[in-house]
């Protein structure tokens, strides 16, 4: 964790949040922040070492940070069991189709490119 790394990450997030607030309310600020940082780093052509170290440290603790908002489920309205069942069924059925579809499609596209 380094100070320049934190300055860049927090700065990118704040810029993304401001852009989201003023011009693009549909898109979360963090997503705009990612795009801004990717754009800057592509122009720069390299990733400064302090930035990759700070990111690796923060990402390692992502589950810890996510636990706080995820715990909000305890104060959410309790779902009746049929709705839980419906949720799990919708998740499982859609995954049964999209998982093979994605794998098959990308492999097919890569093979076609190789055979050209």
């Amino acid at each position, binding site marked *: 964790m380094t100070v320049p790394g934190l300055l860049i*990450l927090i700065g990118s*997030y704040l810029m*993304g949040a401001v852009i989201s607030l003023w011009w693009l309310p*549909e*898109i*979360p*600020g*963090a*997503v705009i*922040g*990612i795009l801004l*940082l*990717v754009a800057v*780093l*592509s122009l720069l052509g390299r*990733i400064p070492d302090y930035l990759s170290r*700070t*990111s690796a440290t*923060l*990402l390692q*603790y*992502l*589950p*810890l*940070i*996510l*636990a*706080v*908002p*995820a*715990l*909000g*489920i*305890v104060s*959410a309205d309790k779902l009746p069991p049929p*709705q839980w*069942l*419906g*949720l*799990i*069924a*919708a*998740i*499982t*059925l*859609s*995954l*049964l*189709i*999209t*998982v*093979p579809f*994605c*794998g*098959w*499609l*990308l492999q097919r*596209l*890569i093979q076609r*490119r190789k055979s050209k």
Partner: protein
Amino acid sequence: MTHSFLTQPLFALWMTLAAFQIALVVQRRTRSLVLQPVLVTVCLLAGALYVLDIRYDDYRSASSMLSILLGPTTVALAIPLCQNIARVRQLLTPLLLTVLAGGVLGVGLTLLFGWLFGLPGHLLMSLAPKSVTMPIAMPLAEKFGGLAAMAAVIVMFTGVIGTALAPPLLRLLKVEDPAARGLTLGMNAHAIGTAHALNESQETGAFAALGMILLGLTTALLLPFVLG
């Protein structure tokens, strides 16, 4: 007096760190797909709040020290994306086609099945970003009238179910290309799928991380226009 002690930030932080540490040890010992660190941490904390009679709102404001880092940490996802930018450029069209087609199909099917099973609108909105990595899925769900915490739980379910389903389904269709396997795991089962992909090979893991980030970005950019 006791209550103000229990809701002070340092106690909340200590409790959260303790739950997280236990979750990490559980994960390391069992190597279980189901016992994800976020899931275990949330269960332990829910138990602690119940036993100590702390309201979630009090806990949440005491923990702002941690949750304030969520935004900058999400932005840190830009770094693994940039580290793999050479691979992305090489396979740009196939990757984008797969992420777009798979992403649209995924959201569409999820909403269709959810609607068929009679789920109410606010649940559907929490369900729509189910395959998106949690830090992006939560604000997305909230923007469309879903509930961030519900989206978090749905995302966790999706990660576990997707990671369990992927190996047999990919074997069935003879998907052996490491890039295709990785991208599929990352796109459908986000961080949980990525962790599993890393066990297969470095390349599978890199493409899984890529799939997770690209799908998150694409969904965040397109969903507003589809649902709006």
